[in-house]
Each structure stands twice: as C-alpha cells, then as structure tokens.
C-alpha cells in the first residue's frame, strides 16, 4: 500500500516535466540548436552553392562591417526604429487619451484604429507601395492642394544631413520615412490598445482626488497619468523595437532595397544574399548580428519581468 502511494507521488513529481518534454526538446533543437548551427555557419567559408564549413573566423563579420550595403542597413534600421517607435507611441498615446474621454462611438473608433493589425505586412506593403508611388496616390492630393515640390517618397535617394561615416553617408534616408508611414499605420493601433488598457486600469478615485485638490485636467495628465504610463511605454517600446529590428515583409514587398540601398534593412539583405546570392556564411552572419541586437533588448526585459513575477 505505502509503496504504491510512494510510486504515485514520484510519478506526480516527474509528470509535469514529461508533459513539457516534447516542447522543451523542440525549443532546444529548433531555437537554441539552430541558433548554434547558424552561428557556426557564420564562421565558415560557405559562400557558394556547395556547403563549405572551413573555419574562417570572423571574416564574414569583418566583410559586413566594411560593406556599403550593410552599413546602409544599420543606418536605415537606426532611423526606421527611432521614427517608427516615436511616431507610433505619440499617435497611440494621443488616440488612447482621446478615446478615454468617455466619448460616444468608442468601439467604432477603436475598431478603425486597430483593424490594420489584422492585415499581413505583405498586404500593407502592396497597398502603401501604390499610395506612396511618387506619380500617383497621395501625391495627386498634394498636387491638388498646391504643393509644388512633391515628395518622392520611397524612391528618394537623399540622405540628410550627409555626414561621412565609414563608406556611406550618415543621416536620415528620406525614403525610409515612406516605409515608416506604412508601418505606423499598421502598428499604432497596437500602441493605442496598450495605452488604453493601461488607462482603464487607473482607478477613477485617483483622478477624483486630484480634481478635488484643484488640479486641472492637463495637470492630472502631466503629473499623475503620464508617469503611471511609463511601464507601458517601456514594454511597448521593447515590442516595437524587436519588430523593427527584424522587419522584413513590409520592406521586401513595399520597396525592396531601394536605389543606393536607401530602404534596405538587414532582414532583406540576409534574404537576398542567402537565397539569391548563395552567400550562406554572409547570410548567417547577418542573422547572428540581428539576433545579438534583439537579444540586447529582449534578454534584460525577460529577466526583469520574470524576476518581478517571482516577487
């Protein structure tokens, strides 16, 4: 009797692990194992159709950091990330605050701002490619409004200001702003939803108390509500940043690398160099660099949130 009870107890102890085991093995191989394989391949000489795992050290990485296209990619990613996150946060927060004013038709507005999220970035890319085509779309409206110097959107090759940096000119590539517009259209509904759910979590008593103390609505927002929004801003920024660092579909379908690589990003470069050029070692090196950038943001986030949970 007692041994039976003991056996059952020990089964219960390993059972949770047994249920998780398939997933643990799958993640172990398909995430960590494959990342290891990719990192290994990035140190190899495999830059043709024939696999060649001769160890070449950091040669592929050194090549990339001297490469015009990759330097352009880093510049483009930097500015894409800044504008994409900045504008999405401002619009998302603004819309959330407005919708939070106990307005009529709240569901209607919310649904409109979020629906682009249900779409594929491929659809967004195809649609905005047409809307921001320099000879049609938005420019037809601007022309009617009397704008003389019509923007060239994603075909613009200007970089402002032009600062010499490595082999590229460093500055904001104007063309990237067209992609930012499409990305903001797709994702600001997400920021709005994040802020709205967090605004709704603020107890009304807090605002009431401040009002009784004679605070104006503006003061309530500046002194009480916005500071409370800080954690949401942080997690939204992290989510948007990791999307931005690995963006591929939108740019691949909307503009491609662009003339002079003004709209190229590491995701597009990796895809083209690997599957079009058969430069597997270079492709894997780009992938590893992307992974490192994303890990720098995500790992501290995961560590801090799992610590918070443990408390």
């Amino acid at each position: 009797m007692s041994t039976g009870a003991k056996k059952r107890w020990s089964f219960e102890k390993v059972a949770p692990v047994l249920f998780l085991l398939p997933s643990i093995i799958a993640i172990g191989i398909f995430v960590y194992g494959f990342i290891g394989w990719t990192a290994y391949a990035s140190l190899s000489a495999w830059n043709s159709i024939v696999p060649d795992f001769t160890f070449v050290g950091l040669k592929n990485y050194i090549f990339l950091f001297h490469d015009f296209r990759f330097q352009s990619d880093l510049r483009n990613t930097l500015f894409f990330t800044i504008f994409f996150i900045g504008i999405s946060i401002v619009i998302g927060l603004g819309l959330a605050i407005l919708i939070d004013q106990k307005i009529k038709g709240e569901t209607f507005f919310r649904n409109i701002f979020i629906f682009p999220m249900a779409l594929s970035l491929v659809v967004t890319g195809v649609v905005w490619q047409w809307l921001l085509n320099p000879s049609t779309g938005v420019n037809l409206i601007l022309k009617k409004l009397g704008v003389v110097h019509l923007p060239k959107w994603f075909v613009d090759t200007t970089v402002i200001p032009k600062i010499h940096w490595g082999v590229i000119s460093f500055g904001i590539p104007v063309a990237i702003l067209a992609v930012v517009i499409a990305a903001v259209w797709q994702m600001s509904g997400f920021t709005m939803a994040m802020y709205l759910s967090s605004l709704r979590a603020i107890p009304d008593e807090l605002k009431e108390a401040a009002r009784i103390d004679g605070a104006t609505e503006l003061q309530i927002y500046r002194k009480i509500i916005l500071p409370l929004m800080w954690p949401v801003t942080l997690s939204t920024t992290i989510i948007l940043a990791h999307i931005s660092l690995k963006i591929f579909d939108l740019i691949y379908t909307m503009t491609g690398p662009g003339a002079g690589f003004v709209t190229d990003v590491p995701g597009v470069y990796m895809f083209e160099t690997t599957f079009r050029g058969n430069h597997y070692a270079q492709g894997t090196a780009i992938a590893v660099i992307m992974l490192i950038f994303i890990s720098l943001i995500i790992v501290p986030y995961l560590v801090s949130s799992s610590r918070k949970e443990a408390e």
Partner: protein
Amino acid sequence: MNRTLIYLILLVFAVIFLTPVYVVLITSVKDVSEITLDQMWKLPKTIEFGGYIEAFKRLEPSFLNSIYLAIPATVLSSLLGSLNGYILAKWRFRGSEVLFPVILFGMFIPYQSILIPLIEFLRIIGLYNTIPGLILVHVIYGIPITTLIFRNYYVSIPDAILESAKIDGSGIFGIYRYIFLPLSISGFVVVGIWQFTSVWNEFLFAVSITTSGNQPIMVALQNLAGSQIVQWNVQMAGAVLAALPTLVVYILLGRYFIRGILAGSVKG
C-alpha cells in the same frame, strides 16, 4: 478639452486610417480602362468584378494552401500551448521558473537566425516545400506565444480548485482534462485567433520553405504585385481576397483579437 475638438481629431484620424481601404476597394472594382493615374481617387463609373475574377483565378491554389496550413497549425498550436500553459501555471518543479523565460525567448528571435538549418532539416525529413512542413514550423515556433497566453490565462484559475481535485484523487492529466480544459474556451478563442492570424499573414517562412504550387497566399500575393503585366485592379482585388479571412475573424471576434494582442505583449 473641448469635446467637439476631441471628436474632430478622432474623425480626422479615422479618415486617414480608412483611406487605404477606400482606394483598395474602389480600385478593385474598376474596369482596366478606368485605372489611370489621375482617376485613382475617383469612384468607379460602373462596378466591374473582372479584377476579382482574375485575382481569384490566380490566387485560388495558394488561398487553399493557406487554409490547409492555417487551420491544422492553429488547432495543434492551441492544444500544445494549452497543455504547456497548464503545467507552467500550476505545477512547480525544479527549474520551472528558469524554463519559462527560456521558452519565451523563442518568440522574439529573428527567424532569419534559424532559417537555414531549418530548411536543411526539412529537406532531411522530406518536408521541405510541403504544407505539412510549414505546419510543423508554425506549431514549433508558436510554442512560446501559445504557452505564454495560456499560462497567463490559467494563472487566474484559483489553486484551491486544483488542490481539492488532487485530494479527490485526480491526477495531473485528469485535472487538465476535466477541470482546466472545460474552463479554457475563451483562452482557446484568443490563442486560436492569434495563431490563425499570424500563420495566415506570415511571409518569411512561407517564401523560403515553399516554391510555386505549394505557396501560401501571401507569397502568391507578393508575386502578383511583383509582376509588371497584372493590372492594379487585379492586385487590389488580390489584396482584398488575401486579407479577407483575418479581417472577417477580426470583425466577428474583435474583442478577443485585441485581448490576444495584449496577452501576447504584456507578460504576467
């Protein structure tokens, strides 16, 4: 703040957000002759479905591929996520705290960093360029997010239920089968919508794992838009067809859709 101003700003934004929809819809029902640059914003004189017929003809095989892909991938991901989430929410064992973030990390990695070995692996097991291969990929890389959403969902179910079931002699699977699973319907809706939308809309795996004939809809749409011969009305009709399933899901189950978005991004 002035209430009229609030409505005015919201309306302006609503119009901006809907502008692409307007252009896509009017273009998709225009006749080829009406699609000139200067008429882009004008309503069509007559409504023609030629664009839709042509787009449907070209996209139908890949549309079906996406259905064969997205439905099994969604069902399998949800079941796996539910089981994982249950264990991680309610059963403590050595290393379970570390394991969760280790699994979660898989959600954030750029898939470029696993793509080449993945393709090699699929070649070896004979699933490269097949829909079952893509299903496998989506189920595996869906583990982190589906586990996360279900775990957060199950955490809110009181431990007391679990304890009393244990006292009644139910085992770990019995408790899942008879208590947690029946309580999970809205969890399954949220995860199901999330996975269906992600799998349907996914592009990188689709474009690198399948070639023509086995391609999902998004790759076919991209090819349609990339070719020079196809007219704009066909492309826009194609975009509508490709977007329709996820839009319908969003319109019918929007509340759960938003909950999924939030659950996928906010931990704990």
